[in-house]
């Protein structure tokens, strides 16, 4: 049995297919059609919902894609769709009872065909709440980030950006802030220790402790671990696969650790990108900038760093960085715990050394010491929510302008995220200058034989990889006017 709040009503489900998505449940089981299916792959955001979780003092809302969020993962949470946002006031007319975000969207002409609009409204609703709580600054960047997973094909976004600003202008509470303590109590009542949804359609298990998780994995060798479902969810909606047993990591207390201890950051196996981001931003701004372009906000709110690693995709964005940083993975199973260096983790295309009864408990990332530098770059067709053509992570230590230690790793260049060993050799014990970079570019050709695919050609990958070394060097020497993004956002050419 799983329980959650559907708006402000307790909702209980005894049995359901483990692969059932929130979207399918809303539309087919409840007949609630305000939540739209645009792609069923977590790419377009038309189905964006707000998921409320108990925080220390209140309810924290995050945006998620209903199409790939397993219904059972809502256990103990609150689900809001756009149909829930209107104020339930007796005296209000259709226009008057709109949420401030909805009213601003109408006022700014933020909808045309209207199909993406429910998702846009929900993303802005979560943004609006975060701003009202003082967790976010209401600037253009935060609005763009809030909308990073919402495609609109009609408006060109400009009226939607205006609507976001206007929605904040009115100094008012919405029904969720006004009734927060009541909803908080209601949501507390939905909390249970370990839950599960079991029956002839399959099982969805939600263990709450690592011991429980290890036992379940040992007992069920065919079970699939599921965290954010941002990748596995697609196998259900796109490849139409079924699953008999899913074990959800999101409730396991030991996997929720996210903290800095002495000289390393520990990111638990169930910690989402969004949760890890503030800590990463402090320690590795360059890494955090790249994570800020990994997937969309909806994906980062659900997906985990551990999932990105365990997937072993050759184009995962975080593994090259973690390799460059010499991160370690703490694995756990009934037969004990062990630690594996991330560089030893990937054994082939989508292959790892992790056994089927093991899970990633934590990712341990050494922080930078004096003289150590990290540079991370992501090259993709589109800035937001796109898979990298090339991802480069460069970690190095310089003493007296000589590179004395170096780790250089790439994604998109080989069948696994991989270090460029010969390129490292070309740079080691040399100054980081045009001469050494030219040698490094030659070495890159020996390190990698990338492929042509939808995202880029092999030749482009190799050429850009070399130029990214040049970019790193220019940045380290504080060359002016080389940051494309900050310069473009600061505005175009004005009067001379």
């Amino acid at each position: 049995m799983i329980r959650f709040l559907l708006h402000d009503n307790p909702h209980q489900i005894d049995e359901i297919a483990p692969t059932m998505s929130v979207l399918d449940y809303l539309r087919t089981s409840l007949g609630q059609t305000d939540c739209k299916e645009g792609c069923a792959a977590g790419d377009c955001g038309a189905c964006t919902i707000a998921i409320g979780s108990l925080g220390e003092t209140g309810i924290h809302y995050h945006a998620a894609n209903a199409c790939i969020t397993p219904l059972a993962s809502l256990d103990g949470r609150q689900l809001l769709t756009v149909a829930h946002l209107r104020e339930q006031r007796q005296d209000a007319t259709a226009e008057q009872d709109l949420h401030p975000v909805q009213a601003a969207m109408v006022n700014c002409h933020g909808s045309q065909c209207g199909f993406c609009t429910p998702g846009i409204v929900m993303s802005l609703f979560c943004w609006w709440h975060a701003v009202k709580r003082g967790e976010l600054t209401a600037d253009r960047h935060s609005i763009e980030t809030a909308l990073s997973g919402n495609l609109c094909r009609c408006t060109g976004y400009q009226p939607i950006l205006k609507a976001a600003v206007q929605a904040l202008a009115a100094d008012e509470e919405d029904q969720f802030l006004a009734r927060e303590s009541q909803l908080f109590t209601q949501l507390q009542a939905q909390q249970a220790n370990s839950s599960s949804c079991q029956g002839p359609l399959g099982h969805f298990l939600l263990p709450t402790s690592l011991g429980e998780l290890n036992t379940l994995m040992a007992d069920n060798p065919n079970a699939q671990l599921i965290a954010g479902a941002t990748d596995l969810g697609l196998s259900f909606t796109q490849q139409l696969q079924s699953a008999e047993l899913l074990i959800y990591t999101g409730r396991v207390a030991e996997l929720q650790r996210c903290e800095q201890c002495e000289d390393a950051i520990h990111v638990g196996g169930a910690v989402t990108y969004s949760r890890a981001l503030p800590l990463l931003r402090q320690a590795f701004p360059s890494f955090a900038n790249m994570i800020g372009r990994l997937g969309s906000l909806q994906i980062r709110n659900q997906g985990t760093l551990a999932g990105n690693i365990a997937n072993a995709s050759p184009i995962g964005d975080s593994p090259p960085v973690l390799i460059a940083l010499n991160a370690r993975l703490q694995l756990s199973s009934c037969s004990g715990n062990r630690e594996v260096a991330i560089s030893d983790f990937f054994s082939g295309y989508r292959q790892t050394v992790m056994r089927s009864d093991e899970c990633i408990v934590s990712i341990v990332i050494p922080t930078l010491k004096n003289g150590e530098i990290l540079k991370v770059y992501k090259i993709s067709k589109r800035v937001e929510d796109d898979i990298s053509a090339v991802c480069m992570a460069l970690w190095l230590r310089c003493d007296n302008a000589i590179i004395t230690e170096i780790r250089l790793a790439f994604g998109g260049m080989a069948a696994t995220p991989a270090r460029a060993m010969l390129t490292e050799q070309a740079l080691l014990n040399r100054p980081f200058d045009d001469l050494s970079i030219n040698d490094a570019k030659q070495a890159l050709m020996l390190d990698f034989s990338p492929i042509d695919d939808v995202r880029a050609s092999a030749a482009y990958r190799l050429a850009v990889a070399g130029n990214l070394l040049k970019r790193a060097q220019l940045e380290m020497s504080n060359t002016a006017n080389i940051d494309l993004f900050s310069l473009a956002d600061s505005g175009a050419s004005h009067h001379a």
Partner: protein
Amino acid sequence: MRSLPASKPYSQSQVSPTTHGHSVAHESAVKHVSGEALYVDDIREPKGLLHAAVGRSPVAAGRLRAMDLSAVLSHPGVAAVLTLDDVPGHIDIGPVFPGDPVLAAGTINYHGQPLFAVAADSLLNARRAALLAVLEIEASEPLLDPQQAIVENRTVRPVHQMQRGDASAAIAAAPLVLESQQIVGGQEHYYLEGQAAMATPTEDNSMLIHCSSQHPSEVQKLVAEVLDRPIASVTVEMRRMGGAFGGKETNAAQWSCLAALLAHKTGCPVKLRLPRADDMMMTGKRHPFANHYRIGFDPQGQLLGADITVIGDCGCSPDLSDAIVDRAMFHADNAYYLPAAKITGHRAFTNTVSHTAFRGFGGPQGMMIIERAMDDIAREVGKDPLDVRKLNLYAAPDRNTTPYQQKVESDTLPRLITELEHSSDYRVRRAAIRQFNADSSVLKKGLALTPVKFGISFTVQHLNQAGALIHIYTDGSIQLNHGGTEMGQGLNTKVAQVVAEVLQVDLNRIQITATHTDKVPNTSPTAASSGTDLNGQAALAAATTLKQRLSEFLAEKHGLAVAAIRFHNNRVYFGADSINFTELAQQAYMARVSLSATGFYRTPKIHYDRSTASGRPFFYFANGAAVSEVLVDTLTGEYRVSRVDILHDVGRSLNPALDIGQIEGGFIQGMGWLTTEELRWDNAGKLLTTGAATYKIPTAADIPAIFNVALLQDQANEEATIYHSKAVGEPPLMLAISVWSALRDAISSLSDYRISPALDTPATPERVFWAIRHTEQAYTAKPAAQPLSEGPQP
């Protein structure tokens, strides 16, 4: 009725008057933001509804020898499978020419082509079952290159040519000659609502279709034809589309036909909604084009002659390609006078899905070649491209005849460009950018102003007609119906504003209804930007008829002249007295005056003789211009569009907010087409970009940090369009050509503006990167090859 309803006053709307010229919100805006607007898949499902899925071809070319569908049929939940043998009527649903079988008829022409359909108790069961067919296919080598197709003379329609003067002689005599090729990529519509249709069998062997289509009348006709039933037995209802952009003009019909055929076979209602990947595989896209120019010009950069060839990749069938390639040809001049011109348009066959209408309908692809030429001329003669563009603009009295003999009668564009040049600070920024580029080695800026002149009217003359139907009820409420369809553009809102204006009532009195083939018959598609022009006029006619009837009734009753009756602000004034609109409706009803009227409109003046390629295909031209500034990273080819200024001509705007919405949205869609939206097929003809994960349309972070959009003021349409407005649906898309041109400008700066870099589209970071490389290499190889001491003059 036995008694009249109580006459209750309508609340005055907050913004009064809510008639034309005002920025009224979209009629469905409140429903959009609250999730209450219903799309086909949201309609409450009828009892016994079956869900359909389509079985696809795994190869791009070949013969379908046999299908074993037993495993499909025995999959749990499956109610029926549909093959060609089950089609009682026509098999071919080609909209103009044959070539589009509702299911593949032996020959397989593209990867993903529908081979059969299956209906089941759930969509998941239908989709899973559809994967179980055992197919016997004799695969053959697919033809994928449109240029190769022309070499092999494999076309879907014959070549067509427009000529004015002797282009070859003019080019031969010209002091300067250039020749280049431009590849222009296609575009996936990516309407957020995928294709969807629901067919419900009704009595008398009839069929009710709910669909998401720009052309309900054609859906009605084709469903009737595949079922072998009279058109009158099919009714199509279409309330709204979740985006269309041309992708639901002809391409929506197949899913309605398949749903109707399955409903006919099973006797159950059937819904067919394409999952996104199926939608992207099975529906046509914007035509990719391979264009070529050979031009002669003088040292000032003025064109003397142009020989332009456009090759449209039509995919595997004609669909609308004849008209689309024609429109590319009609726009190969864009805004520029070609003293002597030869324009040739090829329609290539390839083994891909049949490419179809997409906002601009070939016009954008045609314009690209002449805008390419303008930049190239500027580099050749060492001028700012804007000056070359201005020099070549159409100008009365002797430089205003198009290659198809239509005169460009208005001089809107020169005025508009001058205004934009000033409001965007073009010259000052040009100078600043040259300075920046001189000082910056890694990042380079580019700037470009490009105009748009877009012909308004269907080039197929008979489509330029429309009908409307208006009822006034005895409580004073008004129901409005017209043949157009709402896809987000705000057509219903604008047409309602027209009716409110004529009858001088508040908008909230007017109930907008779904498009219904049983209310207004034989309609044209809502396409070619013509929705408001046509349906607004038809509604104007219907509302005027009703107003006239009510006026005559009131005049006769009070012994006044009809001219003495005046409608204003929900009341009707006669002599010294007045009556509210509802009371008048009731009095008219009691006096047995008809309160229902139809309206009809056909566009005047237009004619075109395709055999001589001359005439006046367009009622008028819509105009606009945009200045785009970009910032390019020469290390990676990544770039940002940092500022865009647009000035656009919508005549006298019916609704400025909706018009600006079309301009901004069209621009960003065009920007996506030319930058990040890349369709990729593999060597076997399989589409690789079948989802938003690999096909990248712009996000909110891609729009320029500075995005100024304005409507040209005091520029009523000279033609008698609806309240002298101008169509706005398609033209703004082509304003985005300025982004591509600005990218070329930034790259050209690497050669001190001497080399005009080739940049095929979409100009992805990778293509920009290679253009940078090639420009640097060419400049290093022969920096002094061209004796030009300076680049563009600020």
